[in-house]
């Protein structure tokens, strides 16, 4: 039987040589990998995950009344270029939208956090607000982000900052530079993996290169997805929902928070379905009438149209800076 305790062995290897050789080998291989993936255009890349989100949420706590918080799903995240909005308002802006999910858990979280007292802009994508299948579609998306953020110790926050610091500087830490992706791709095609269609920035701005997106990115493709996942609230279901939103907004306003609800543009087949499933007068207008906040619907501001990508649902990343400037002006116009 193996001895219970380990360790002591008279013939120790030459650890000085071992570690010198190890460090040299690691330096050569990892350094070469870094150069290889950079050469293929795969630079350092942030990952749009809970870590980046939680860090942004922590940063928000430090800015009180000055802060502008953006909530929603992919429409909001891809529409707003955070830097442009910061320039426009001369205030810090925090992107807390999460792709494919409902903003409600984060709105609730902000409502009960005494440190939050700035401006909250909520993007209402009909499928993520007026849809009775939301829980099924959403799978608790933003609630999981909140749980992750809520349970972070100070050490975990520090770890997060360090991880993000390295992510922003080292290409070999990028998801597409992982050997598990690079090596099979090299073996199958003889080339390195293509660029990531999503470029994620430190401030959680996301730019999408639609030419690199896999699958059906047309408005018909998204519309088909919509049909599978949308079912409007009935009137009796919608009433308590509106009342609930009004209550949360009331809690935010009591702390001095300005709340904006915005409906960002959509077009083509997606818009046709949205109008069919969630008519403005039955949903948006009812919400606007019953909730004491500022409402900005793109249809009322022609200057917000004409920036969409081919999917008919998201702002074209190539024009997000321009759109953000216009959108910021519209929000300023509606300031209370």
């Amino acid at each position, binding site marked *: *039987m*193996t*001895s*219970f*305790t*380990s*360790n002591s*062995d008279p*013939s*120790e*290897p*030459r*650890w*000085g*040589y*071992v*570690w010198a*050789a*190890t460090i040299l*080998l*690691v330096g050569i*291989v*990892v350094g070469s*990998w870094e150069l290889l993936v950079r050469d293929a255009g795969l630079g350092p890349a942030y990952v749009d*995950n809970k*870590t980046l989100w939680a860090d942004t949420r922590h940063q928000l706590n430090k800015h009180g009344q000055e802060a502008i918080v953006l909530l929603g799903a992919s429409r909001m995240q891809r529409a707003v270029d955070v830097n442009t909005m910061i320039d426009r308002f001369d205030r810090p802006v925090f992107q807390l939208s999460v792709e494919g999910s409902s903003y409600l858990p984060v709105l609730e979280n902000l409502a009960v956090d005494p440190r939050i007292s700035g401006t909250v802009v909520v993007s209402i994508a009909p499928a993520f607000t007026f849809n009775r299948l939301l829980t099924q579609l959403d799978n608790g998306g933003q609630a999981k982000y909140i749980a992750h953020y809520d349970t972070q*110790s*100070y*050490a975990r926050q*520090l*770890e997060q900052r*360090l*991880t993000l610091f*390295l992510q922003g500087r080292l290409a*070999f*830490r*990028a*998801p597409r*530079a*992982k*050997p*598990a992706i690079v090596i099979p791709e090299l073996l199958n095609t003889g080339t390195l993996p293509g660029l990531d269609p999503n470029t994620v920035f430190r401030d959680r701005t996301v730019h999408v290169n639609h030419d690199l997106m896999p699958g059906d990115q047309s408005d018909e493709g998204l519309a088909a997805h919509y049909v599978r996942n949308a079912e409007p609230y009935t009137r009796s279901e919608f009433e308590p929902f509106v009342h609930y939103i009004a209550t949360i907004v009331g809690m935010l306003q009591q702390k001095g928070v300005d709340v904006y609800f915005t409906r960002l543009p959509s077009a083509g087949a997606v818009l046709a379905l949205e109008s069919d499933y969630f008519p403005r007068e039955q949903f948006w207008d009812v919400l606007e009438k019953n909730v004491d906040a500022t409402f900005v619907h793109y249809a009322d501001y022609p200057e917000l149209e004409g920036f969409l990508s081919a999917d008919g649902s998201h702002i074209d990343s190539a024009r997000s800076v321009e759109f953000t400037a216009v959108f910021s002006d519209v929000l300023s116009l509606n300031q209370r």
Partner: protein
Amino acid sequence: MAFNSLIFLLFFAGVLAVHALPLRWQARKANLLLASYVFYAAWNPPFLVLLWISTLTDWFAARRIRISSGRKRKLYLLLSILVNLGLLGYFKYGGFLEDNFSQLMAWLGVDYQVSGSDIILPLGISFYTFQSMSYSIDVYRDRIKPADSILDFALYVSFFPQLVAGPILRAGYFMQQLVEAHRRRADDFGWGIALIVVGLFEKVVLADGLLAPVVEKVYTLSADTTGIDAWVGTLAFSGQIFFDFNGYSVIAVGLAKCLGFQVPWNFLSPYASVGFSDFWRRWHVTLSAWLRDYLYISLGGNRLGQMRTYANLAMTMLLGGLWHGASWLFVLWGAAHGMLLIIERLSKHLLGGIAFFQGPATKVMLGLLTFVLVTLTWVLFRAPDLDSAARLYAVMLMPSGGINVADLRDVIVVSSVIAALLGTHWFMRNREFGSAMKRLPWPTIAFILAAMLIAILLSAGEERDFIYFEF
């Protein structure tokens, strides 16, 4: 501050730097104690108080036991046991007991509302309460003398390399290392860092990078999966839990070694076990030794006849299962292992003398059977609830159609890793890891360590906690 975090690396570098200064031994031990408290407080500072309660109770109880006699000795021992098990019981099992009581009341038709208090499980409480309590028991049994220095005893209870998930230390084993200043040895440092790299490789690359994603695919599915997927997911979990926990334990040994301390191995090639008593001598060695010495033997061990031995085995494994977590699944897992140990004992009693069972080929066959049965018990350990466990057992034992979640790549990855794991464990079955590794030529060691470090650095996966942190 998990071992697989950057912040821990910085913390450890700081601790090492101070430990290497030409300070008095007392000052260096104080540095380690302070570092251990900072390490623990990094999760949840108020829980330090619990660590202090456990430490002070056993410090006081052991000294009183030493100078008392008769009933008083027993009372002080009882104090230690009550305080430690009380802390464990409240924080770990409070919610569980309340839920079960409320269900029992509902079954009896009584409307009893649970308080809804959300008790947070303090990290490592199952480990340090056992460790601290064993000191008082050892003093009571006259195996050791009480420590002269509270600094030494506090450091024994809270030594950060093993504080939150073991290996569970014995006071006699560890505190003798605190008496005199260690001679600084570059070899200890070189070997310690090598162990840290090996442990990180097991955790980051094998457990988290290769196996955990497959386990999650299978075990988070709410519908029926296929028989093959259930086996692939469960085999993956066999590997994941070993690499995760052994990785942690190897890092703990390495960290201690860098600081000049010896900490026992927790795993001795467990998947090459022949039979379940052998498995428990090789798996989580320090816990099974603890349960044997302080529970099984206290219950009478095998001294009170055949039937009582079986009952003691069953009780020890049931409680061992419950130690892992406040859930009926863990109780069932412990019960399953208890039953397997009893069956093995009975079989040995009936068939032990037959030469067929002594041959090397039979040994390998029995070893593989042990591995398969242990793997089957892991379903209870990993499944989110009893229904899921039952569903998985059903498709594993009687394959039928279901949702296919594991792809060909998953099957290849899991079978390759598990085959390599079994092969390594059989090769290392009677060898000691340290001497096996140190016998290699130094360029080979450098190559292995470099390959592991490169794999760690390049596998930028999702950060996961160690599984045993939940216990």
